């Protein structure tokens, strides 16, 4: 069956006339997301099938539940979404219903003492950050920006500016409420127990976060709809109100008060010729900081991060790039006096000793790199306000490679991935991208004091299908090379078709996850385009499912 007048009328009864539409103009606003090559290609393949048949706005868990039950009765696919920033939140086939959560936008609880908040899907990071800040707390914000849904990001996928202490989304999610694909509601963590409060993440019994999330990703909306989460808040050494100066795109934030200090550290190597040494030294810095357990932020930023986040216009970005404002990559560190000023000063002393030990140099305040980064954009890493600048070089952006492992292995992975990207470039793949921004360096994001680490390298194609295909080709080549050297930790972060490709090499994990999918989504209607499929599919079947093209 598909989405019919009966389906529409049933949904209308649930949410009321004003909270549902099947008008093509209103639905058109849910039909394109082209900042990623995958989104461009999805639109190329699916055309107007990417436009939902209906957009419905539930106002409560009960309404979500009713909607899902109707979807099961009439067997039409539905897509849960947060702010709708990634291509997974868009249909690949006609007759799909999108659940827009704008009416579910409450902060249900903000617990200062026990440092958590309970939120609904349409609460943006900036909102919860602002509320937490009043109590000396904060929430990590993702590189996707503080405008995205905190719930979706924590429940599904997210990496943060201060992952050095907070980890990724997986580490920030506490309890959750989930409407399963068959319409049943389940709550996890202490949220499951009446009167227990919302403070805790696992139990009773097995931790259902393990069922909801996976790797960096969860089920991409394939396991129902999260309607509520509780999430961690963290001690914040900064002020109660985020400090800014200037207006609009010339608004900068360079200080977070007396208990917060930023540092840029560089290593004396030629760039890009000696990039390997620079990356390895950065790793040493992080390992030492991890041993000492100091710092609030510790990250290695390649040129593309520095240039994009700090540039106030596209022209400024390209000028800064051409003028080599950041002649190399840098490590960026923040120390925060969460105990006291004395603690901050102690950590500064340790940091200085470590930097000396590993042969690094602090970037001086009068250097252009410091002026452009610390004075303009460093605080961005705490509360992302200008995140989409990352796509500004070419109005399109793609992660070229990513991986999760030790800091050492991540350095190795960056070099190996960059080599794949350079080799591709020699064949002409990526020649029209913003270069050389698309082949050097990477973001090293050590997590939880460096116990583990993730990286990304980025490529900047234009929104041109041919270039986007090239970007996807590069991602594929990098992934293949990772498999060849048995380091494809990225492969374990699976979505949709990747389950069938990689599952057999990973203990047949795809069969277990598919069994779960069959159990909980018997009609295969919870975002079928991106979740794993109930059965193993052939390439051809996948192409059909994904709207006709390759994925």
């Amino acid at each position, binding site marked *: 069956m598909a989405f019919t007048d009966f389906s529409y009328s049933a949904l209308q009864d649930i949410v009321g006339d004003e909270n549902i539409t099947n008008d093509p103009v209103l639905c058109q606003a849910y039909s394109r997301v082209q900042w990623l090559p995958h989104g461009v290609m999805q639109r190329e393949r699916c055309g107007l099938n990417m436009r939902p048949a209906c957009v419905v706005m539930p106002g409560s868990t009960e309404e979500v539940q009713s909607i899902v039950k109707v979807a099961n009765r009439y067997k039409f696919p539905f897509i849960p979404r947060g702010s709708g920033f990634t291509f997974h939140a868009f249909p690949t086939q006609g007759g799909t219903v999108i659940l827009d959560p704008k009416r579910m936008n409450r902060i249900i609880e903000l617990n200062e003492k026990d440092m958590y908040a309970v939120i609904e899907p349409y609460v943006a990071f900036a909102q919860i950050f602002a509320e937490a800040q009043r109590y000396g707390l904060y929430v990590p914000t993702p590189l996707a920006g503080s405008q995205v849904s905190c719930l979706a990001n924590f429940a599904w996928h997210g990496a943060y500016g201060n992952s050095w202490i907070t980890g990724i989304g997986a580490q920030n999610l506490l309890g959750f409420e989930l409407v399963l694909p068959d319409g049943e509601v389940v709550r996890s963590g202490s949220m499951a127990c009446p009167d227990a409060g919302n403070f805790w993440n696992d139990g*009773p019994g097995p931790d259902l976060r*393990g069922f909801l999330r996976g790797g960096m990703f969860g089920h991409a909306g394939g396991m129902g709809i999260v309607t509520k989460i509780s999430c961690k808040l963290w001690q914040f050494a900064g002020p109660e109100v985020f400090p800014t100066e200037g207006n609009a795109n010339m608004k900068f934030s360079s200080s977070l008060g007396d208990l917060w200090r930023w540092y840029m550290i560089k290593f004396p190597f030629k760039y890009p010729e000696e990039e390997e040494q620079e990356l390895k030294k950065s790793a040493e810095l992080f390992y030492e900081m991890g041993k*000492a357990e100091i710092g609030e932020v510790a990250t290695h930023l390649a040129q593309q991060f520095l240039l994009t986040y700090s540039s106030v216009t596209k022209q400024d970005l390209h000028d800064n790039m051409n003028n080599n404002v950041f002649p190399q990559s840098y490590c960026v560190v923040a120390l925060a006096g969460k105990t006291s000023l004395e603690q901050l000063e102690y950590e500064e002393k340790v940091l200085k000793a470590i930097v000396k030990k590993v042969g690094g140099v602090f970037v001086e305040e009068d250097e252009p790199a410091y002026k452009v980064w610390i004075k303009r954009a460093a605080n961005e890493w705490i509360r992302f306000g200008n995140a989409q600048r990352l796509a500004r070089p070419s109005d399109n952006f793609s992660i070229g490679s990513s991986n999760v492992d030790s800091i050492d292995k991540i350095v190795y992975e960056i070099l190996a991935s960059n080599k794949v990207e350079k080799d591709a470039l020699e064949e002409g793949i990526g020649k029209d991208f913003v270069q050389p921004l698309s082949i050097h360096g990477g973001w090293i994001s050590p997590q939880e004091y460096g116990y583990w680490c993730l990286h990304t390298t980025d490529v900047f194609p234009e929104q041109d299908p041919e270039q986007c295909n090239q970007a996807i080709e590069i991602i594929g080549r990098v992934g293949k090379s990772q498999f060849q050297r048995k380091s494809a930790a990225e492969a374990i972060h699976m979505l949709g078709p990747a389950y069938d490709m990689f599952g057999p090499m990973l203990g047949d994990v795809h069969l277990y996850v598919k069994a*779960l999918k069959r159990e909980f989504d018997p009609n295969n209607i919870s975002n079928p385009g991106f979740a794993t499929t109930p059965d193993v599919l052939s390439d051809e079947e996948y192409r059909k499912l994904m709207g006709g093209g390759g994925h």
Partner: protein
Amino acid sequence: MTEVLSTIEELTGKLEKVVDSTRVFTDPEFLEGYASDTSHSCNKKPDVVVKVLSTGEVQKIVKLANDYKIPVTPRSSATGFYGAAIPEQGGIVIDMSSMKNIRRIDTRNKWVMFEAGVTYGELQEELAKHGFRAINPFLPHKDKSALTSTLEREPRIVHKHHLDETILTMEMVMPDGNLFHTGSMAISPQAPETIPDELPSDLCNFHGPGIDWFRLIPGSLGTLGIVTVMNVKIALIPEKQKMMFFGFDSLEESVEPFYYILRKLLGDECLLLNSRYLATILASDPEEIDSISAVLPSYTVIVNLTAGEWFPEEKMAYQEKAIRDISRTFFIKPMESLPNVPDAEKVLARHLLQPWDNGTYWKFRAEGASREIFFLTQLQRAPEFLQIVNTIAAESGYPLSDIGLYLQPKQNGRSFQMEVSFPYNPESQDEREMIDALYREASEQLINKGAFFYRIYGPWAEMVYSRTGNLHETLKRIKRTFDPNSILNPGKLGF
């Protein structure tokens, strides 16, 4: 598989093809040792016990059991506390306590990989040679498997965020006998068996593959898969440490200062013990417990300040200053030792890193046995729950002065495991019955009032899951998906 095994002999015959016959046990007296544990919560002998030495053996046994639909209960420790490894429906117990290899210590990435039978004592001893420590619970039993303790999510004594979840990767046998690896071990599955010097992965990624097994499996009491090997985060042994104590007359008075100490990130280890529990640990002889308890503050918050490689004196100095500042704020007095109990700080310092090594397990010292109720709560609610426990204990005629109390912060104080213990004489039928009734009544009432029972042992499963809506059904569906024949530790968690 249509064939049915009708006799134990047929089963042992099959098992002996998998492992050496000397490691297959059917002697009733031997099996008796697997029929109960210190919880005395249930009593059921397995039909056969197999002592295994490798994951491969586990795999073969599970496959066999799955083929013939025979229950399999994994057991890694030589002792149990909550009935988790008692084979409620008989069948095979896979005893992994002989899997004793500590396979690798990665000092750069700070992890240790070990097998199911390794105890904390063994682990700490080996790690100490490299300057590291395992992140252990408070004073575990010397026979407790570190792997089981981790999977059971016993609260770690180090409350830091980044050490809240310590599991990196795992090797496990699924209910269908499939060998499965989690996290980055999935991509380098040869690693656990034979570890070369240079692994393709450093086994630091704990997520995936697919879903987050590192979370789904712990707390499942061996019902979803049998973990045989894991690597977990470890920490450097501090170069300096200094224990600070705060004494309180009531639990209520401790709440605000304790929150504040944790908010200021002071102390690698922080915990609160009541006088009874603390005395139980400090007494060199059980006879002294009463007298030591009498001279201790009613409630003691213990904060262990540490410092490492860089400028340890200075680190200590800022921490001590912060402690002094807090003391002034709350009008409380920090103590560097416990009055009337000489060297208490030294005894405790040693105990922070080690399993209990002074004869009878500390919780049993007072009366020979004890029953514990533990759950998670917010610190601010702990006094309310203590009141409930005291009321029920008083009604049951249990002496309040005998109750032990331990509060262990997790995640920098977001949550606390609250443990109350009721020591009793296991030889007395009356006491056993009284304790059993008290335990059930207190558990019920605590759950009703919102105490969060997160580790679900024995009767708690029914009590908790009957109050959590669709959660149990969801878990059962997951269980059915992975273990359609319900062979893994059946009966646990209400499965």
